[in-house]
């Protein structure tokens, strides 16, 4: 049976992290399912657990002039209720699990779990979010997209904690979020789509598109977005077939119990096309 740690400050948590290999436990909604053994049995955690869900330093949302800093242990329901939350992030969080899950599950947990189907991840990707990783020896800032190395694999070292998520709300004329799941609640995503688009003076001046659950990590390509940026809105439809062909190469879904690869790819491309063309007209 494993032991547990109950730090009262972030400093204490980082100290424990530097000395002991342990599993940080934020909301527990993923961990308790992963290690579950059945009714009446103690979940089979294989390492000591450190409870960080209540640490005051990492459970706050700060917003100033469109700059957001979200503590890693902020639950989804706080993001849904926060009056300045970006609508696109609010939508993603309100479609995760069901209300009781949203009260426990956290943004940092969604990121560190590094599931290809993490629902906040495509949204954070189009927000160009960055992450603060802290240890006793200091902190570093990494971009969300560089944080993921593969399913369940991240840059986070054993002595570090993800403490904060930062982003700046971009200027946009349209935003879109779509979650494709088997049912409306308590469904893991077959596909998650997030996009921003900015149209100014007849030109497409910014486009950001990200997809989740259709490749080992989030799909976002600035290179492909750049093919649209700066183009006259009236020319976009013509550019779409080539663009979608290029996206088709990046979208490499698997077939699993939730969906099949062909469906995921087809629908992903249609979501991109619909978002860009619908918002273009």
């Amino acid at each position, binding site marked *: 049976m494993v032991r547990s740690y109950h730090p009262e400050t972030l400093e204490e948590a980082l100290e424990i992290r530097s000395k002991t290999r342990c599993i940080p436990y934020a909301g527990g909604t993923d961990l308790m399912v992963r290690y579950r053994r059945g*009714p009446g049995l103690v*979940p089979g955690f294989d390492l000591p657990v450190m409870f960080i869900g209540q640490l005051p330093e990492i459970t706050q949302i700060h917003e100033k002039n469109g700059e957001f800093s979200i503590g890693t242990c902020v639950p989804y329901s706080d993001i849904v209720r926060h009056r300045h939350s970006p609508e696109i992030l609010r939508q993603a969080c309100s479609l995760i*699990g069901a*209300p*009781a899950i949203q009260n426990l599950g956290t943004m940092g947990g969604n990121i560190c779990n590094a599931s290809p189907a993490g629902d906040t991840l495509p949204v954070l990707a189009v927000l160009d979010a960055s992450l603060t990783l802290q240890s006793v020896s200091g902190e570093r800032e990494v971009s969300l997209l560089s944080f993921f190395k593969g399913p369940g694999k991240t840059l986070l070292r054993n002595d570090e904690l993800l403490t904060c998520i930062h982003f700046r709300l971009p200027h946009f004329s349209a935003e879109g979020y779509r979650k494709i799941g088997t049912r409306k609640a308590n469904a893991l995503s077959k596909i998650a789509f997030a996009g921003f688009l900015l149209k100014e003076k007849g030109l497409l001046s910014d486009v950001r598109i990200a997809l989740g659950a259709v490749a080992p990590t989030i799909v976002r390509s600035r290179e492909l977005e750049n093919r649209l940026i700066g183009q006259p809105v009236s020319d976009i439809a013509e550019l779409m077939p080539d663009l979608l062909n290029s996206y088709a190469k990046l979208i490499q879904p698997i077939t699993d119990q939730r969906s099949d690869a062909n469906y995921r790819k087809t629908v992903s491309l249609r979501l991109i096309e619909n978002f860009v063309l619908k918002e273009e007209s």
Partner: protein
Amino acid sequence: MNETIQFELNGENVSIKTSPMRRLIDVLRDDFSATCVKEGCGEGECGACSIFLNGKLANSCLVAVGSIKGMSVETVAHFQTTPAYRVIEQAFSDAGSVQCGFCTPGMVLAAYALLKENVDPDETDIREAISGNLCRCTGYNMIVDGVKLAAKRGNGKW
């Protein structure tokens, strides 16, 4: 490794020496005889094990007891003593919201979690609020009716 964990259960301070990784649902049912907390799926999808944790709806099968040191837990057995419960109980009874009853403790708590934030919910609000609670008997419509009736009779006094 056993640890002493203190928390508030239904308004009383309690303390238990146990593994911190034990599921709260097991602690409530086996150590505190709170059998109103049901086990359905055991993975946070059915809502039968719903409780209020610091006043917020939570699935007790997804909570390690070590994570709730100093926090408050309320089960439907305690909520039963409040006037709000009686409004929901009567409305559920009149609308036929209860058949086998297994999902009912969770449904009642989910309904109250909604009504205390939104005194006049529409049908979509209600369906979202109970979206984490599965019922295999009613087809949900009668539960939605029960919550609507409770909202009307509660008249904003939640």
